[in-house]
């Protein structure tokens, strides 16, 4: 999977906006949206929020978890635990990037939030690498990881799977038996 595909899936998440135009309810395939009244908050998917923001038709309200203190707590928790802690949102990384790139004037302390989210991401990826490393070196057959997000899984997916395939081929060649050698070649 491509990271841009993951970002595309993340754009379905719902975010609150405050429009400055009025429009009746609109009926889309994915669901109903609206009605839009100036000054009244309404929930829309991120893709629509970004489009309206770029056309200067709304103001984006940052999600509840996008707050300096909450993110600091999460970061501290993440650093203490050995396993993965629950994330503020299954698409926290993509949402941070999208909202901070397009709507940083609506989000207070945008720079600090960016740093905090990056710290959380770095810690989690480090844990993932450690876990994958121990999985391979101890030649486990099965592992279970909780609380991983799609983006994190996506970063290791292709590499991990290819590695495991290669290792399987190499391991199966250690068996004395010439019929397997021809498989590898």
């Amino acid at each position, binding site marked *: 999977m491509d990271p841009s595909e993951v970002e595309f899936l993340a754009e379905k998440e719902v975010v609150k906006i405050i429009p400055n135009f009025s429009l009746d309810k609109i009926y889309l395939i994915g669901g109903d949206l609206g009605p839009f009244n100036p000054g009244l908050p309404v929930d829309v998917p991120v893709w629509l929020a970004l489009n309206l923001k770029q056309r*200067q038709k709304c103001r984006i309200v940052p999600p509840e978890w996008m707050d300096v203190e909450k993110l600091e707590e999460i970061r501290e928790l993440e650093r203490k635990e050995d396993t993965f802690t629950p994330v503020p949102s299954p698409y926290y990384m993509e949402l941070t990037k999208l909202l901070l790139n397009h709507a940083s*004037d609506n989000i207070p302390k*945008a720079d600090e939030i960016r740093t905090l989210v990056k710290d959380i991401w770095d810690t989690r990826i480090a844990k993932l690498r450690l876990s994958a490393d121990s999985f391979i070196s101890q030649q486990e057959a099965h592992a279970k990881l909780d609380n991983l997000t799609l983006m994190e899984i996506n970063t290791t997916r292709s590499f991990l799977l290819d590695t495991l395939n290669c290792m399987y081929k190499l391991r199966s060649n250690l068996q004395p038996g010439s019929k397997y050698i021809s498989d590898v070649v």
Partner: protein
Amino acid sequence: MFITDIRKEFYDVVVNQRVALLVSSEIDALCACKILQALFHCDQVQYTLVPVTGWQDLGTAFLEHKEQFRCFVLINCGANVDLLETLQPEEDSIFFICDTHRPVDVVNVYNDTQVKLMIKQDDDLGVPSYDDIFRDEEEEGGNDSGNESDGGSEPSGKRSLITLTFETFHFRREILFDYEQYEYHGTSAAMVIFELAWVLTKDTKDMLWWAIIGLTDQLVHDKITHMKYVTDIATLQRHVSRHNHRNEDEDNSLSIDCMRISFEYDLRLALYQHWSLFESICNSSYTSCNFKLWSMHGQKKLQEFLADMGLPLKQVKQKFNSMDMSVKENLREVIEESSNKYGMKDIRIQTFGVHFGFKNHFLASDVVHATAALLESTEKDDSPGDNFIKALDCLSRSNLERLHGGIDLAKKKLMAIQQTVASCICTNLILSQGPFLYCYLLEGTPDVKLFSKPMALTLLCKYLLKAFVRSTRNKRCKLLPLIIAAPMDVEKRTVIVLGIPPESETSDKKNFFGRAFEKAAESTSSRTLHDHFDTSSKSNVIVIVYIFHKRADMTHYRWALFSIIELKMEDRTKFLDALITLLS
């Protein structure tokens, strides 16, 4: 006709249609175009952008697009000529013109249906009233018989009719001539379009920055008076404070990546923050002319100046950003104090600067120089359309490499101008031809390709005149206007001729050369092309009578702007001779 409510009469009409945007090749027009494009993107208006460099381009573009479009928006072109006569459009085509060129042609002003002018009426226009210029024959007959209150018999009635007609004819022509003889510039087009954005409450800091650049372009290329510049700066300053106030409301400050515009009372040194201070002083026309840097004496004076301020030469010659903080701290005040001693009272000027990210800081004049250099770049394989698009790109925040490329080109251009001026003064290339000064750049002159473009040639011409006025001892020569000619296209053997008014303290930036050039060209039947928008290409035959009638006024020094034409090389000498006879 003039538009009073720009939102209802222009934007609401245009938003539901496909629009053709015809934009002239100058920085102010580019900025206005950017703002308008941003507004169109917000409302998803379909438009086609066509850059035009002169009247011929405008005509061709119009012919190409007149089938598909009903609405044409013209930016910085088209107001000073009878548009309907030149373009011959269909009945249902509408033209929205946002142009700084004045005087606005009277036919454009009084046309009620097809030509809409986005110009504020209090903008110092002085348009003659309708009744003074246009009169029907029946009305005339009616008026005349009405004026015959002394009760005349038929024969005397007829005689008065004839005399009255002749007088009104003269009167009308005189009014028109007075109105159209001087060309000048009005409020920046970018500012007009920014006001539209403000009325729609869709104005952003990006748009405000573009409006500032449009205004600064008018100052850098000497199109408006200092008074007008200061007034317009005050208007923009109100917008800047409004935007800044909005951000500092919260106690949480904004992300460093957001754009911050600030009012600066900064030095009049071109590109000094992207260059070394020494280079900038050498290549800015203000300082260079005051110190007379083409002479040894001038160089010594410059060294004294730097020593007076206590700036070590080593510091001053390195890149501005690498100068010591202790030196940079009060630089502006220190320079201002010292400049006052050396006779440069206006070294500081009101302007705006922008910050975004950690290392990007630009003054408005920096961006103007960079964009002008890109727009008129003479590299090979650069068509005018490509240059236009590159210059347009460098105005966006996301294309910083282009902007830096433009700054490098601008530095080369300024250095070329400085060297050309120095060589012209030292080799006495400026000759007095009687009523004006004349300079011709030979084909072999270094960097002469740069001066085949109007904006670069204008900068050179103004700089040259200032330098000449400082270096000559002849009192009479100091009051003469300057005409400069440079080779334009070597293959086609054309020459570009430009005239600027004399140096004066109180110039009101009005120009006469357009008419003079036309007449000289006609009288010698030189093959000329009055293509550039700054020269009106009206060929009103009656004007000849008035040129000779008003000979006294021709030597009246109320000129300002500049006028440009193209000429065939062979016709140059006879054109000049005709011009001399005309103006003496």
